[in-house]
């Protein structure tokens, strides 16, 4: 009789651990796909941004709007990181 809880524990724990490991695998698999998509998005949208402290080529560096804003007040469309 005294072995019953231990048997139940063993019968539950091992499959629960296996099932949870399976869910971790699925979640991280989804994460891999999402992060790969973000990497692609970043390369596509930010590849024109020059390294920190360097100026972008003139053609890409046009300020977007706001002619009344001074250069110091408004940063250009192409960001310098």
């Amino acid at each position, binding site marked *: 009789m005294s072995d019953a809880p231990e048997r*139940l524990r063993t*019968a*539950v724990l091992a*499959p*629960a*651990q*296996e*099932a*949870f*490991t*399976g*869910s*971790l*695998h*699925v*979640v*991280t*698999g*989804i*994460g*891999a796909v*999402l*992060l*790969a*998509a*973000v*990497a*692609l*998005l*970043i*390369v*596509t*949208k*930010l*590849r*024109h*941004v*020059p*390294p*920190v*402290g*360097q*100026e972008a080529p003139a053609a890409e560096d046009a300020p*977007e709007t*706001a002619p009344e*804003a001074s*250069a*110091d*007040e*408004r*940063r*250009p*469309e*192409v*960001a*310098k*990181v």
Partner: protein
Amino acid sequence: MTSGETTKAGRREWLGLAVLALPTFLVSFDIFVLLLALPQLSADLGANSNEQLWIMDIYGFLLAGFLLTMGTLGDRIGRRKLLLIGATVFGVASATAAFSTSPEMLIAARALLGIAGATLAPSTLALISTMFRDDKQRAGAIGIWGGMFTLGAIIGPILGGFMLQTFWWGSVFLLGIPAMVLLLVAGPAVLPEFRDTKAGRVDLPSVALSLAGILPLIYGVKELARAGWEPLPLAAVLVGLLFGTLFIRRQRRLSDPLVDLSLFSNGSFSATLGGMLTYSLVGGATMLFATQFFQLVGGLSTLESGLAMLPGMAAATVAFAITPGLATKVRPAFLIAGGLLGTVICMIVFSTTHSVTTLVVGFAVFSFCGAPMVALGTNLVIANAPMEKAGSAGSLAQMCNEFGSALGIAVVGTIGSAVYRHQIDGSVPADAPRSSPTPPATASPVPPPP
């Protein structure tokens, strides 16, 4: 704006950054330390499980709810002024929390801490933007700013654990007070003031709509993760989405909106925010499942599983420090994307591993590789916004982190729970419990990335 055209920051600005690092460090520190103190304070105050959840959650709810308002408010009334007001309230709320005599009093103090906390991150980011006009210096300053979050998560359990063993639970809340006093004393001397003199008054209906949208949305998303597809959280999400839509429509009509939606017409700005949101989403979900894996499969205690995340926090701190230097040589797109490819490899390894050690080491590599997305991403968001909107832009970056983490726990966590239930069906005795091990949304022992 380039480094050659602008004035470089001097000693005063770097001293100012050291002062700004204090509240940044404390916000992260407080999250970790409360998790350690929760068992003691619950026993002392007689808090039931529902009250314990509110003690934990109310802070995050109100922090996320007030971020947008506070970011814009700082731009209007002055960033330094808002920071100093927030620091004062944070100090008073910390003292109230420390000497709480009932769960209700502690929940109220935590609510006040959340509102005060919402002033800190956007104000500090906006002030960094004001103080560091040089691109390289600003990137470095934001790297240090980001590193303070992870440093808080590392030092939190060490110092907090010592305080809890030596003094009563309330002592951990008092740790923040000297730092806030130092900020109040040194801030006016070393921090510049900046406010948008052309901006009109804050649109109060927009504030109300933003709170009516964000608060139910965050509550609903967290409860969906905790309780499953119940009617109340589902209704909360729908109410949040409704008011969120009304908020956006109002912003489009106003000449001086709370959030300038035209910022999103800049592709770099939108893509960076989207990337930060997704990274936080994946990071939050991975952290939650990893800590549960440590406990359920690895047999570690809650505290041990929290400590197992520390190498990851340390790796992120190092990466935050070196990323700005690398970014002077490599285009940010390639640095961020290269780091993200590293995180993809980590996730592929996680998706096949059965080892706790692999997960601990892998999480450290993941955090290291993901740091450029956070550090350079924050810098890009700030850099792409006009100077007078830096507070608003900073609050949007913070919102992405808060929402991303909550969404990751809810959405990806729900998928993980479904997989768990599917796999366990039929493999355990009929009378054995089948509930998912996916924990309360507050169970993650480490704060989300900054």
